[in-house]
């Protein structure tokens, strides 16, 4: 037996080479990497990255919503679209619209020049067909049409005749929508990509997946049409039949699948792609190439909040609820790593196009302590332990319980956090056997009323158990108004609801989009309904490695 460590020379050499190779890869250069030139013929093709499966079906909406919206709004055009600056509805497939005097019937006139990608005319019947398909699908997305008369009943199977639904194609170019209740926000709601029309052939093409091998078989009415499908994504080209083709500056759009949003960002850095929608946070790493990029940021239309059960013990007292709201410190609540994503919420409705968020809350621990003392609980003494009910999946979510720590430190209020399985928690919520919950609301309609509607529901169905007739009246009145009058009523409703503090808004969320500086025309949208038809490319020469790294 030899006692000398001895390996074959070639084995030692191989090991050394392997180690060297691994070290080179792990410590290799990560800056100033070369950028690939745009492929010939693609100079005017926008390349968008998506990281979750996409399907060219307006009624299958995967997350993240922005990739889906970009894809569907490339292929289909709804009746209206919202102005990026004001949020006001603008004609798209519809040329005009009018309300009946009671705001229960909306009549839309379609463009006579609207064409499908195969040249067929787009008719009102195509919208009715598409919307009825949405209602027939047993998916949660059908709620978008629930304001329409009998739509929910048809969706749930309580009514089986499509004719019962308040949708009428009065003629080829006239569509009539009958509502259960007045809802002037409905016009803006029609900008939802879900409410795209369907060509008579489309349902079958989607059901048979024919578009994979015959992309042209998918007939759409949007600014682009499908010309290629592969495992790596979809290729679209500008549609020659689109009524607004003169305004569409892109020759095509390519949707490229990436494994993660982060690898999508690398694709942008390498010159393989131009846009990564739905970056959950701004990339913090050093940018690997000199390709100029911009991180766009927009507030989403949603709010994370604590909900107080106003029928429970000390929380019946407005002073206690206000004290709990005043004692918060939203800036400290947000974790350092989330600074670019989360924003302190001082109102229930965040900033949105045409409507600035209100400043309804403030933070003042001294005043909070005073209010609590006035309510009979100085330093939290005498106040029972508050039960916070959270779903099991929220265990580990630091935001859900961050307020409880603050309440204890500032007010001496103790909280018991109970994580519960869905069935047990539902039972507890229905029975009202809790004091506080935490959750998020996300709007699906570009209108403040959507977030505020949680305060108009019957008390037994809400987490706050709070109901105020006047707030409900104000929101109902807003549904009879449009424009400035409507906004004023919504503001009154929000102020009134927040003054009663049934819930405390904590944070709003930002959505990030990474784009190459070559991409022009990008605009913010709280519901991420950007349409590629508004975008264009301005190619810039590639920067040399010596040039300063562009700010992101």
């Amino acid at each position, binding site marked *: 037996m030899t006692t000398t*460590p001895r*390996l074959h020379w070639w084995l030692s050499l191989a090991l050394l080479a392997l*180690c060297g190779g691994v070290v080179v890869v792990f410590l290799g250069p990560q800056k100033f990497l070369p950028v690939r030139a745009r492929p010939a013929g693609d100079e005017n093709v926008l390349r968008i990255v998506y990281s979750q499966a996409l399907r060219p079906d307006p009624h299958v909406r995967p997350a993240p919503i922005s990739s889906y919206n970009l894809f569907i709004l490339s292929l289909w055009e709804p009746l209206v679209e919202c102005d990026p600056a004001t949020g006001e509805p603008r004609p798209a497939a519809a040329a005009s619209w009018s309300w009946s005097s009671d705001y229960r019937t909306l009549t839309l006139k379609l463009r006579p020049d609207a064409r499908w990608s195969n040249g067929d005319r787009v008719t009102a019947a195509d919208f009715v067909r598409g919307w009825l398909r949405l209602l027939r699908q047993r998916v949660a997305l059908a709620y978008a049409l629930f304001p329409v008369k009998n739509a929910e009943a048809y969706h749930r199977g309580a009514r089986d005749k499509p004719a019962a639904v308040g949708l009428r194609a009065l003629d080829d170019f006239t569509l009539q929508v009958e509502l259960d209740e007045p809802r002037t926000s409905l016009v803006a709601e029609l900008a939802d990509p879900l409410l795209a029309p369907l060509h008579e052939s489309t349902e079958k093409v989607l059901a048979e997946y024919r578009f994979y091998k015959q992309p042209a078989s998918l007939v759409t009415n949007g600014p682009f049409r499908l010309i290629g499908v592969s*495992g790596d994504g979809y290729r679209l080209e500008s549609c020659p039949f689109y009524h607004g083709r003169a305004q569409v500056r892109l020759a095509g759009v390519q949707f490229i699948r*990436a494994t993660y949003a*982060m690898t999508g960002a*690398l*694709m942008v850095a390498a010159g393989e792609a131009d846009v990564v929608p739905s970056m959950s946070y701004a990339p913090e790493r050093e940018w690997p190439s000199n390709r100029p990029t911009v991180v766009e940021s927009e507030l989403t239309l949603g709010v994370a909040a604590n909900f107080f059960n106003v029928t429970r013990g000390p929380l019946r007292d407005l002073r206690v609820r206000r004290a709990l709201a005043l004692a918060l410190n939203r800036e400290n609540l947000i974790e350092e790593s989330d600074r670019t994503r989360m924003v302190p919420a001082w109102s229930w409705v965040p900033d949105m196009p045409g409507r600035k968020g209100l400043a309804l809350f403030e933070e003042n621990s001294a005043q909070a302590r005073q209010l609590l003392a006035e309510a009979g609980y100085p330093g939290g003494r005498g106040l029972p332990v508050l039960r916070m009910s959270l779903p099991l999946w929220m265990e580990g979510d630091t935001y859900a319980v961050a307020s409880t720590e603050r309440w204890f430190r500032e007010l001496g209020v103790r909280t018991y956090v109970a994580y519960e399985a869905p069935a047990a928690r539902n039972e507890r919520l229905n029975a009202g056997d809790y004091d506080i919950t935490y959750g998020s609301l996300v709007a699906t309609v570009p209108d403040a009323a959507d977030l505020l509607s949680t305060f108009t529901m019957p008390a037994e169905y809400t987490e706050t158990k709070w109901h105020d007739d006047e707030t409900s009246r104000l929101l109902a009145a807003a549904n009879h108004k449009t424009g400035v009058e409507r906004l004023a009523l919504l503001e009154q409703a929000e102020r009134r609801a927040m003054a009663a503090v049934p819930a405390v808004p904590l944070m709003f969320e930002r959505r990030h989009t990474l784009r190459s500086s070559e991409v022009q025309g990008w605009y913010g949208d709280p519901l991420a309904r950007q349409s590629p038809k508004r975008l264009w490319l301005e190619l810039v020469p590639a920067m040399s490695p010596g040039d300063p790294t562009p700010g992101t």
Partner: protein
Amino acid sequence: MKHSTGSGTEAGWRNARWGWGLWLVGTIALVAFLWWDARAWLQDAPQATFRTTKLNLWPLEILWWLFVPAILLVQRSLTRVDRHWPWALGLHGLLAAVITGLFIIAQAGRLLLVNHLPVSFLPVVVDDMRWLGEWSYLPALIYLAVILALYAFGYYREWRAGQRLTHQLQVANAQLETRLVRASLDALKMQLHPHFLFNTLNSITSLIRNNRTREAEDIVAGLGGLLRRSLDHRQEAMDTLEHELDFLRRYFEIESIRFQDRLKVEYEIDPKCLRAEVPSLLLQPLAENAMKHGISKDPAARLLRISAARDGTRLVLTVYNDGPPLPKDEAALNLGIGLQNSHARLLMLYGDEARLRLRDTPPHGVRAEIILPFRPSPSP
């Protein structure tokens, strides 16, 4: 310490060649299949994508197949340095890290190809994977577990080889001991024949002197048969009781000529005992003693009785004569070379399990008794 025989090494090399061959065939088959599956993508066909190839879809663990020979080779090499365990430990640690790194790089390579990123982005992808928590350290654990198992198996095999060697040595020792015992037995047997011959030749001489030539001739003929038979069994340490009694009968035929009609020999033999195994020429010295110290000492004595019976697991052999009792001073003393030899042989063959004793049987007579384990003879 490694122990192997020439044939063992040859078998080991044969197995190793088979192993390498199988690995090579498997590798070629695997590469060929992966190439065939990804041919469209490799040929840059339109619509073809790396994403749907098995190269991307199959679990990365397939890499272990490629690593197996390298791991075995390294482990085999490092086993030789086991007395330098810090070296082995360090090298295995390094290898575990390298293999983990290779897995991470392979995963990053996949991400690179799936996302159409240039090769120069590989370090960036590797770093991004760390951000995403996609660095898996499982390969290091698997490697170390496999190495531990290989070491354990190796040591177990060596232990088994040691055990086998010990057993072989024990067998060899036992065989050597048996050979020594057999040599001793042969030497003792060799002492019997001269002793008997001496007595018989004395008898023949006496007969010739007394002009009893006819009887002397009979004895010579009987002796010739006896010696022939004795020579036939010379190489055998054990014999059946049946053969032993047959030998004894021939012996008494000679003795009865010497003693004319005075000698009466009786046999009380349990037939079940005839196939029992006994040391060859065991009874003859006892019979000779009975003749010498019993029958020939007392003119009235004439009976000699041989008996054999089974007592459970024991065989009881007796030789009785109705001659005078044992001399007082001789009972515990040496009764002759033949008897001593019989005693020594019993001790060597059976140890404490066998016994030989002489007893007076008042009013007259002496009985010699041998007790030994009852064992049926293996020979037919």
